[in-house]
C-alpha cells in the first residue's frame, strides 16, 4: 500500500506585477507517495519551478499562494508559521535548484554550508557535523571529500557544485526531495551520473522525489509518474508507461515528438508551433487551443474538464469527450 507523502490540492500561485496580480500556477493538484518519483514536465515558463517553490514556501517576495492546500506528512504547509516551516525545510523536505553555479554561497566554504543544516536540525556539534559532512560528500561521489570541505564554490566545477548541493539537500535524510532541473546546466555524462545518484539515494532512503525537467529523456529514465504542465495548469498526468505509450493531450504528444529518437532514424523531430502565452494574456477556453491543430469551437470557449483514461491516467482536453463518446457509441453498437 503506497504511503501518501505530499498532497497538493488546487494550488494557485500569483505574482504581483506591474500588470496586477497574475497567476503562474492555476489550480494544480497532484500527490507524491513515499519512494516514488514524480516528474513535472513542460516548456520553459510553464510554472514548474514556481510549483516547486510554492511547496517549499520559497517563492520570490512578489509571489504568494492564493488558493489551495499543500499537505505534507499530514500537515498543512500553506497555513504554517514561518518558524515551523523552517524546521521542515532542509530537514524533512529539501530542494536542489536549477542553477548549480549560483546556488552555493561564494564566500563560505563547502564545509560551512554542509554543516549548517546538520547543526540546525540535528543539533550536531561542529566536529560531528564536520565528520558527517565528509561522509555525505563521499556518498554523493565527490573525491577527496576532506579537502573539499575547506574549498569554496569557485574552486569546484558545475558537476561538483551540484553534487555538493545534493549532499546538502540530503544531509538530514529528507522524506521529500524536490529536484528542479538538477542537470539542465550540466553536460551529458555528468547529467547521467547525477540522475543515477538521485535514483540510488531515493532507493536507499525511501524518499519521495519530485523531479522537474523539460527533458523527456530524463522522464523516461527516472519517473514513476509524470505530470505535464502547460501555462500554469496540469493538463495530463499518468504513470510513465501509459504516458509514453498512450499520450492523450495534443501538447503531450507534441512534447514526445520533439524528442530525438536514435532507434528510428526516420523519426521526424517536430517542434510544437507557437509559444507559451505570457502570464498577462487572457485566454478563454482551453489555454492550449491557439496552438492546437485539433481545436474546436468548444475548446475556444470552455475550459476543458478532467477526463479519466485509466486509473492512473487523467487528461484535460475536450477531444476526450469525442473519443470517449465514440468509444461508448462503438461499445453500444457492438452490443446490439
Amino acid at each position, binding site marked *: 500500500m503506497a504511503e501518501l507523502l505530499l498532497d497538493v490540492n488546487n494550488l494557485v500561485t500569483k505574482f504581483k506585477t506591474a500588470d496586477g496580480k497574475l497567476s503562474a500556477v492555476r489550480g494544480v493538484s497532484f500527490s507524491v507517495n513515499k519512494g516514488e518519483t514524480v516528474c513535472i514536465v513542460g516548456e520553459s515558463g510553464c510554472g514548474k519551478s514556481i510549483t516547486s517553490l510554492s511547496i517549499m514556501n*520559497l517563492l520570490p517576495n512578489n509571489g504568494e499562494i492564493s488558493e489551495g492546500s499543500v499537505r505534507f506528512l499530514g500537515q498543512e504547509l500553506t497555513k504554517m508559521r514561518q518558524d515551523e516551516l*523552517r524546521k521542515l*525545510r532542509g530537514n524533512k523536505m529539501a530542494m536542489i535548484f536549477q542553477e548549480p553555479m549560483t*546556488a552555493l*554561497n561564494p*564566500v*563560505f566554504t563547502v564545509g560551512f554550508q554542509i554543516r549548517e543544516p546538520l547543526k540546525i536540525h540535528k543539533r550536531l556539534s561542529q566536529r560531528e557535523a564536520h565528520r558527517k559532512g565528509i561522509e555525505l560528500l563521499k556518498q554523493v561521489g565527490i573525491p577527496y571529500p576532506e579537502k573539499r570541505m575547506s574549498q569554496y564554490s569557485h574552486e569546484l566545477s558545475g558537476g561538483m557544485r551540484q553534487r555538493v548541493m545534493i549532499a546538502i539537500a540530503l544531509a538530514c535524510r529528507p522524506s521529500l526531495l524536490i529536484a528542479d532541473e538538477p542537470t539542465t546546466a550540466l553536460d551529458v555524462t555528468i547529467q547521467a551520473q547525477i540522475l543515477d545518484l538521485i535514483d540510488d539515494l531515493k532507493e536507499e532512503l525511501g524518499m519521495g522525489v519530485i523531479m522537474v525537467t523539460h527533458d523527456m529523456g530524463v522522464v523516461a529514465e527516472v519517473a514513476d509518474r509524470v505530470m505535464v504542465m502547460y501555462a500554469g495548469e496540469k493538463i495530463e498526468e499518468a504513470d510513465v508507461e501509459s504516458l509514453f505509450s498512450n499520450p492523450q493531450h495534443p501538447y503531450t504528444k507534441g512534447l514526445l515528438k520533439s524528442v530525438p529518437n536514435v532507434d528510428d532514424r526516420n523519426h521526424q523531430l517536430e517542434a510544437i508551433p507557437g509559444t507559451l502565452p505570457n502570464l498577462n494574456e487572457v485566454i478563454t477556453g482551453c489555454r492550449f487551443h491557439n496552438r492546437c491543430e485539433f481545436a474546436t469551437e468548444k475548446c475556444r470557449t470552455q475550459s476543458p474538464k478532467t477526463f479519466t483514461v485509466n486509473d492512473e491516467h487523467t487528461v484535460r482536453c475536450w477531444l476526450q469527450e469525442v473519443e470517449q463518446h465514440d468509444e461508448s457509441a462503438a461499445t453500444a453498437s457492438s452490443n446490439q
Partner: protein
Amino acid sequence: MVGLIIRRMLQLVVLLIGISFIVFMSMHLSPGDPASIIGGPTATESDIEAIRNNLGLNDPVLVQYANYMTGVVQGDLGFSYQTKQSVSEAIITRFPNTLNLAIASMIVAVVIGVTAGIISALKQNSWIDVSSTVVSLAGISIPNFWLGTVLILVFSVGLQWLPVGGLSEPFWTIEGMKQLILPAITLGTGSAAMIARMSRSTMLEVIRADFVRTARAKGVKEKTVIWVHALRNAMIPVITVIGLNFGFLLGGTIITEQVFAINGVGRLMIEAIAARDFPMVQGSVLLVAALFVLVNLIVDLIYSVIDPRISYD
C-alpha cells in the same frame, strides 16, 4: 599577500616622488613670495633678498627640489619658513587630531551608512526606505561647512549640549567624545550617505540571489540568512566605496577642522598655504598622500579576507 604589500610600498615611493614634484612646482611657480611674507611689511628689498638667499630660493627650481628630496630621503622634511619649527614635529603634534577626526567620521559613516542601507533594502519602498533615500540625497549634496555651522548653531549655541569647537581632550574621555561628535557627524554625513546608497543596492541584489534562497531552503533562521549569508556578500562592493570615501574624508578634514577650530593637519595646511610656507605644505601633502595609499592597501587586504575569490598570490 606579502607580495602585494611590497608592491604597494614600491608604488607608494613612486607616487610620493610624483606628488612631491607636482606640489613643489606648483608652489614655486605660483605667485606669492615667501621671503616677503617672512620679512613682513617693514622689510627692505635687501632684507628680503638676504632671506631669499638664506632659504635657497634663488637657486634654480630643480636644484631646490633636489635639495629638498635629499632631505626627505633622510627623513628630514625641513623647517617651517614661518615658525622655524621642524615640519615633521609640527605634523606629528597635529596629526593625532586629524586621525581621530577621520576615524570617528569613518565610524559614523560606516555604522549609519551600512545600517540604513540594509534596513532600506529589507523594507524596500517602505517609509523608512523612502526617508532614508531622501536623507541620503540631502547628505550627499549638503556642503560640510554649512552642515557644520548649522550643527554648531543648534547643538552648541542653541541647546548648549556640546562644545563649539576645539579638540583638546583625548577621545576616550567623555569631554573628548563630546568635542569629537559634531565634527565627526559633519565630516561623516556625505560618506554615510554614499555608503547607504551602495549598501542598499548591493543588499537588494544579494537578497534575491540563488544562494540566499538555498540558505532558506536549508532551514537557516531569517536573521542568519540576512546578517551572515547575505551581508558578507553585500559588503564586498561596499568596502570599495568605504576605501574611496576615506580619501574624500581626508580632503574634508581641511574644511571641518577650520569650522570646528581643530588643530589638525588640515588647518596646518591651510595656514601654510596662506603663508607660502613651502616646506610645511609639502610635508602635509606627502603625509595625506601616504595615508591614502595605506588605507587603500588595508582595503585590499580586507577584500581578500572577506572574498575568498580574491587572492593576491
